[in-house]
């Protein structure tokens, strides 16, 4: 069997004295949709930041398709086929929606640092960007400045930028945060759509979304994975109930 | 040895003077996130106001009133200028203060002309306090040390012993906590800017008789002040003090000792070319330490920024 898409080996991260991630081991197979849940402050975002190179781990390792990427910079990890979105909308506010998407495309389409291509003439880029715009349903807002979009549209754009480059591992950090039910449904459809045949790692508070989308769920509590299995098993797990569902989930559901 | 001692004292005076400017700048930067490019211009304003006042009532009242006027002007500029620009972001803020520096220089020339003004130390302090091996140490410089130390101690006291000071200090390290100052943040900003500029004004009054009062005095000191707080670490008061003293001594000692490149090069085994005036490396051979003095702070800053971008004692990055 080939190496897992993402493998974390005894990953640890401390800020000063505070140990935020304490020895996480996790394997995510290729093509799997994997969700990470856990109460606030469990270290989910930190875990994302460790995988994507935003922070360097204190110890342990991160492997993509068997390759050690521990301590690499975000752009180096991205070039190995991993792309992520952010919990707090992170787009290019002073550029148009179309350009936002296009920025996500350029590196993987081989334009890199090119100053000898006229970008407007690269029909392959344009076509692909238009395709993604259609996919995230923003074609009509194509020439608006991204900063002027409505919140839900910005979230969609965020996902669009993330998947534009065609990375085969997608990390989504609370894509549905702050959305209404109808908007959430749209986004979930979108996510399912765009991550076809890809490996997905997602952090989300909305349990409906998680159980709807995920093939496997890992539960992170105080920087440790206490359970990692199929939704049914997790739902039934006493450990999880005790540590997480018992207290926090009810709170969350309010 | 005697000369060494004299230079230590002189460098100390220079460093403390620099610190008076840097402390205000640091205060403003820490609280408001604004790198005030015009800080040295307020220093210049202080000197000019003090000169004008001294014509009427003498030096001592100028020492008190001039910084006050400068502080009020600073507060007004914050209220009606900076606050307006604040919403556009940090770069326009920096550019605003840059423009302010140009404008103040022009305004000063408009009112006082372009020549150096005869602003001298008060007669009461116009004597040599003591002499070390024939080198007189003017009483005025002793006074400068006293004032600078006084300011430093007052500042230290306010920052560590009073409530408002604690809050300010917290804000120095954790900018987010500025919100804890309560709902009237704009007023606090205005006061901080006023106090910061008033300190620059005070430094101007004190430095005027020694360094001269002329329209270029802000420019001459402007970038050095920046360099100092960047070396010390943006937002760190102790860093500002340490960096000020380092630069004060660095410059004093660099000018005090005539180490030449020729001595060094000969010492490590090179021979001086005979036709030195035609040699492509003539400038290398004729280089002396005093020549390099003024650029040492910039060199130091670049090295510090490359190796330790947060500065010597800074605890946060830009």
């Amino acid at each position, binding site marked *: 069997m080939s190496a897992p898409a993402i493998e974390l080996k005894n990953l640890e991260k401390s800020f000063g004295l505070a140990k935020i991630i304490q020895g996480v081991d996790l394997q995510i197979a290729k093509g799997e949709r994997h969700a990470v849940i856990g109460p606030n402050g469990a270290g989910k975002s930190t875990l994302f930041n460790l995988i994507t190179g935003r922070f360097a781990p204190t110890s342990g390792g991160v492997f993509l398709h068997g390759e050690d990427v521990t301590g690499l910079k975000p752009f180096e990890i991205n070039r190995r086929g991993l792309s992520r979105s952010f919990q707090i909308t992170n787009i290019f506010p002073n550029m148009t929606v179309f350009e936002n998407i296009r920025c996500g495309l350029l590196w993987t389409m081989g334009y890199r640092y090119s100053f000898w291509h006229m970008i407007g003439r690269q029909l392959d880029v344009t076509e692909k960007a238009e395709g993604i715009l259609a996919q995230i349903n923003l074609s009509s807002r194509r020439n608006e400045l991204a900063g002027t979009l409505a919140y839900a549209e910005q979230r969609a754009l965020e996902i669009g930028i993330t998947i534009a480059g065609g990375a085969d591992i997608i990390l989504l950090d609370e894509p549905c945060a702050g959305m209404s039910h109808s908007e959430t449904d749209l986004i979930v459809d979108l996510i399912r759509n765009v991550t076809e045949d890809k490996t997905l790692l997602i952090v989300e508070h909305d349990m409906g979304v998680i159980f709807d989308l995920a093939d496997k769920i890992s539960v992170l509590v105080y920087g440790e994975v206490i359970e990692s299995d199929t939704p049914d098993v997790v739902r039934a797990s006493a450990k999880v109930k005790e540590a997480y569902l018992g207290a926090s989930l009810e709170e969350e559901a309010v | 040895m005697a000369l060494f001692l004299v230079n230590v004292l002189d460098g100390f005076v220079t460093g403390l003077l620099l610190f008076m400017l840097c402390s205000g700048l640091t205060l403003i930067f820490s609280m408001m996130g604004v790198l005030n490019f015009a800080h040295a211009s307020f220093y210049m304003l202080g000197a000019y106001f003090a000169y004008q006042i001294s014509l009427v009532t003498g030096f001592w009242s100028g020492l008190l009133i001039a910084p006050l006027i400068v502080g009020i002007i600073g507060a007004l500029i914050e209220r009606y200028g900076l606050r307006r620009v604040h919403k556009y972001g940090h770069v326009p803020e920096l550019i605003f203060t840059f423009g302010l520096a140009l404008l103040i220089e022009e305004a000063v020339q408009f009112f006082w002309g372009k020549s150096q003004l005869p602003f001298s130390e008060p007669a009461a302090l116009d004597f040599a306090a003591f002499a070390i091996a024939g080198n007189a140490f003017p009483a005025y410089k002793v006074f400068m040390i006293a004032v600078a130390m006084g300011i430093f101690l007052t500042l230290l006291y306010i920052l560590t012993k009073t409530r408002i000071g604690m809050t300010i200090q917290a804000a120095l390290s954790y900018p987010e906590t500025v919100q804890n100052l309560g709902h009237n943040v704009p007023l606090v900003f205005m006061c901080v800017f006023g106090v910061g500029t008033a300190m620059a004004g005070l430094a101007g009054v004190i430095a005027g008789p020694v360094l001269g009062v002329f329209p270029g005095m802000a420019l001459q000191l402007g970038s050095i002040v920046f360099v100092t707080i960047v070396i010390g670490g943006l937002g760190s008061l102790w860093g500002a003090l340490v960096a000020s003293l380092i630069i004060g001594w660095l410059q004093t000692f660099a000018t005090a000792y005539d180490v030449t490149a020729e001595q060094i090069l000969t010492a490590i085994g090179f021979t001086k070319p005979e036709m030195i005036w035609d040699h492509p490396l003539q400038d290398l051979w004729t280089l002396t330490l005093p020549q390099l003095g*003024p650029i040492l702070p910039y060199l130091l800053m670049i090295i510090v920024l490359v190796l330790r971008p947060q500065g010597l004692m800074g605890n946060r990055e830009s």
Partner: protein
Amino acid sequence: MNKFNLMMASALAAGLVAGVAAAQEKIRIAFIDPLSGPFATTGTQGLAIYRHSVKELVNEPGALLNGQAEFEMVPFDNKISAKESLIQLQVAMDQGIRIIAQGASSGVANALTEAVAKHNRRNPDDPVIFLNHSAVDPALTNDKCQFWHFRFDANADIKMDALTDDIAANPDIKKVYVIGQDYSFGKAVAAAAQRFLKEKRPDIEIVGNELHPIGKVKDFTPYARKIVGSGADAVITGNWGGDMVGLGKAVMGAGFDKPIYTYYGATSGITAAFGEEGDGIVKLVGAGQVNPAPTPEAQEFIEAFYVNFPDLDFGQPQMANVAPMLAAAINEVGNATDIKAIAYALEGMEYDSIVTGKTVMRESDHQTIQTVTVQGQTPGAAFEYDKSGRGMVAETVVELASNDSATTCEMKRP
């Protein structure tokens, strides 16, 4: 929009040029010196002296072409920048002005003399003449000399010659400290000091010879310490502007009470800044003299200057020679349009100046030979500087100073 602006720009510029080009029957002299910025005082003062001398010595007496013509000074602000000077030179030439006067900063003078030489080489039928009234870098009349440049001030070497005469006559001076700004002029001063002292008083020891960065030193105290520490009996410096004030105040503040010989240690706020402390200590070497007025005409002339320009000082007497000497050359030629002939007429001209005595424009290098004096800051002088109640009084007077000095100039004449 940019095109529109450009058009407006050009329209404005053209209107401007056309406006001034409506020439009067006056002979115009372009005065290109700093009139704004940190050195504006120097330029403003020079312009005032020019205007005064044009009025008193040429126009009112009708001394130009039998009263048929008058001089007019046209000021151009060069902001003491070489680039700006070249632009102003171009503007002046476009306005039909062929006589250029400049003096503040040898750097600018170097740029101008080259530009003038280039222009005259490229336009041999329409030459321009450059009258340098106070840029004293010796190179201008030595290695860099050229036919169209005339210097009316005594150059740095000539001044040093006079200055060292004064030092040589003072047996108390055994050690001298030379300090200057790190650029061509400062280096020229240092070299000349060494040369003349060695020649005139080999027993004098030069205990310090150093250059400091120009305009960059905030606090001269460390330099002052070195000077006091060296046990010097006199200081020689070519510093000007803020560097002069800074150095002077620091040296005196460090307890130095012996002579400080300067090139530019007076007026423009410097005398006021030194005040009482500088009395009897600060010396200045310069062409001509102000206190006491050397001639009754000079007395009258300078008095009138202070009446007309109460806020300014009569600082550089030799500037008053430019207009009358130029007038004499034009009179000799008979018109003001044949610039080449005027230049030839200036060469070798002898002139009896009211302020600088017998004055000769040396043919070999276009360097004026005239009276050079060493003056001391004295309270209660008749013509005061900076309204400070003190002025510079001549102490040593050298007539036709350095008359026989050598030059490396190889003048190429058209």
